[in-house]
């Protein structure tokens, strides 16, 4: 190993502090403009989505009641899958971010909304809105990096368990709603003191209650309505849950793991300014290109970059502001990662396989990192010291 090799500069340090703050001010200006423009159009949009979801669900369940007829089963399963996808992504996820709180409608309050999936909404709001959105892509703080069971970053030290990375990923995708439900419980962490255990018992109870209610509805009550033909709605409901799981997993894993997104260390993100926070959100997120229907079904998480910059602004507006955001990123030289689903997801799958194996020893792995991998495996402090040694920086 040669000591003359310098790690690639951290993307966080690609701009001067003044540039970063000016970038942040531009982002704040976009936010301000959208806030001032928020109104009836947004209220109408979310109500239309809710209306579509409730109709798809009612229609889907009615068709599945008569699911013994194959066309009814297929149409019913498709409608219910779409209903669950809309409910979870464009409605639930976004409403629970507080995107529609300004409407003062208790049914659209971020704090009260409950969604059609196994994860209790209040636990989601903690693990997602706070933990993930505040600490995006900070290894050790953002548990969305691998959901506690996958290795999605070189910064996570390899262990033999990760040989199963592709298998664990396939299982997580299949049972995604339960993976999300268990998220806040941090089951992979060692149990702490009695207070912590009591807290976890409380969380587990909440999860069990929600899982039970969801399962009762999809696997007992609605099938029971079909009497001896219960197996058709049962299979339809299970298929709809599976379809939603696979879709949500695909979209969500394309948000932060495609090639070119960055992870960060706790050290390098300490005492962040607002401008630095904005900068990190762009560096750690990736967009998906596609048509209007694709964006709706992804809950506009296809605009992951805009979502992470402005998590509490109505998501259907991300498309229109993405033009300005992208333009600003170009001007400041901030990489704006966007690509079609097959390409972004392809690179996520490649990463899942690649990270199943340990990296080579440092002399080689630095070369790998230089080829566009994430930040080098040196700690943030060492990295900063190295950067200071480069003349002109």
């Amino acid at each position, binding site marked *: 190993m040669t000591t003359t090799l310098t790690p690639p500069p951290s993307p966080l340090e690609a701009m001067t502090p003044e540039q970063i703050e000016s970038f942040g001010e531009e982002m*704040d200006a976009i936010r*301000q403009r959208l*806030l001032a423009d*928020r*109104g*009836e*159009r*947004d*209220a*109408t949009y979310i109500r239309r989505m*809710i*209306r579509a979801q*409730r*109709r798809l*669900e*009612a229609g889907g369940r009615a068709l599945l009641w008569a699911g013994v007829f194959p066309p009814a089963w297929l149409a019913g399963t498709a409608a219910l899958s779409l209903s669950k996808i809309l409910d979870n992504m464009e409605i639930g996820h976004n409403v629970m*971010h*507080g995107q529609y*709180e*300004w*409407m*003062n*409608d*208790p*049914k659209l*309050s*971020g*704090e009260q909304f*409950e*969604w*059609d999936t196994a994860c209790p909404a209040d636990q989601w*709001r*903690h693990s997602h*809105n*706070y*933990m993930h*959105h*505040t600490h995006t892509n900070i290894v050790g703080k953002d548990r969305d990096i691998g959901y506690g069971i996958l290795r999605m970053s070189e910064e996570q030290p390899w262990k033999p368990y990760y040989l199963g990375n592709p298998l664990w990923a396939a299982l997580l995708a299949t049972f995604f709603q339960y993976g999300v439900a268990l998220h806040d419980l941090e089951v992979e962490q060692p149990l702490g003191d009695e207070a912590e255990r009591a807290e976890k018992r409380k969380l587990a109870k909440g999860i069990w209650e929600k899982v039970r*209610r*969801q399962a*009762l*509805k999809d696997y007992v*009550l*609605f099938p029971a309505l079909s009497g001896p033909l219960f197996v058709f709605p049962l299979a339809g409901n299970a298929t709809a849950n599976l379809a939603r799981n696979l879709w949500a997993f695909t979209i969500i894993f394309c948000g932060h793991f495609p090639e070119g997104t960055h992870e960060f260390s706790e050290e390098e993100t300490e005492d962040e300014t*607002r401008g630095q*926070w904005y900068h990190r959100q762009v560096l750690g997120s990736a967009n998906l290109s596609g048509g209007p229907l694709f964006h709706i079904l992804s809950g506009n998480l296809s605009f992951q970059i805009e979502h992470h910059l402005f*998590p*509490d602004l109505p998501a259907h507006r991300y498309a229109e502001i993405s033009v300005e955001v992208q333009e600003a990123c170009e001007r400041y030289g901030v990489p704006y990662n966007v690509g079609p689903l097959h390409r972004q997801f392809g690179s996520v799958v490649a990463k899942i396989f690649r990270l199943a194996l340990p990296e080579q020893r440092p002399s080689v792995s630095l070369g790998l990192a230089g080829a566009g991998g994430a930040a080098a495996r040196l700690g943030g402090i060492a990295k900063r010291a190295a950067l200071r040694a480069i003349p002109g920086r």
Partner: protein
Amino acid sequence: MSPKLASPGRRLLDAFAGPHGIDGYLEQVDPLLVSDQCRAEVTAVERGTEQSVTLTLRPNRAWQGFRAGQFVQVAVEVDGALHQRCYSPASPEGRPELEITVKRHPEGLVSNYLVDRARPGAVLGLSAAEGDFQLPRPWPPSILLVGGGSGITPLMAILRTLFAQGYDRPVALLHYAPDPARAIYRAELERLAARHPSFRLLRSYTRAPGAGELDGHFSPRHLPQSEPRFAEAETFACGPPSLLNAVRETWAEGLEQRLHVESFVPPTLAPAGEPGEGAIRFAGSGVEVANSGASLLEQAEAAGVPAKFGCRMGICHTCTCRKLTGTHTNLITGETSSEPDEEIQLCVSAALGDLSLAL
């Protein structure tokens, strides 16, 4: 809202319809079908004067009625957002329909919207009826009503209820308005006075001297003409603060128990103070502290009021809490709002003057 204990049938329906509940589907058919929220459809709109509108409302089955004199909070959607305002129904007790009259306030978001744009078929939110300002049971032997501006509305409910139910003891109304054209319910009051000899109607038009039975703003000298034994009458006064202050002074010496007042202040006119002025009231915890000007989250923590929080930078909405009254400013954007009953983010909001939180 009407808190109800769910019946087993209802619970089964909700288990089928979870997590949104059966109401989440019923309201897609008809917004009035919900049973967990009180809502009302506007069935008639009458623009009595240019400055006011009278709405007839048909509440859904969650409505549990009101006592004459009480008020309800009406939620009106303006540009996508619901705004709550208090209105006193003017209709008599015990009718299936409610009547509210809304007077335009020059800068009032909701009053302007309703006066200009309310239409039959619109759906409004309703709270349960509130307020101690109500006709006592049994009815008092004589009644004096003092009303100014839109403060006439709860007094109309009282008058209409009394006459609908055959009250024949002395009733007097001192009614203050700028001029006859702006006197809400003028025609109906004249009809009532003509029909019921026990009812004395005395009007004072403050900007049209000579047009009414009295002149000028309220003063004790208006009283002997209306109810010689006013000291014995149960008195109900409703109107702007200036009127109520004058009334309170007159009823000061030992007569306070006979006086019931209801203040009508347009909420948008609630004065905003400066950062660091006034007091923060945590209504849910019963704690009040002097406003230090810091973020409301920091002030809650300093006062020992348990507040949820997350990012502390206005992103995650963990600390979102209902502001009941007062003016707040967003520490990041500098925007201010005096809207009552509003969800705000404590970590990036500070109070301008007195402010009360549900926390």
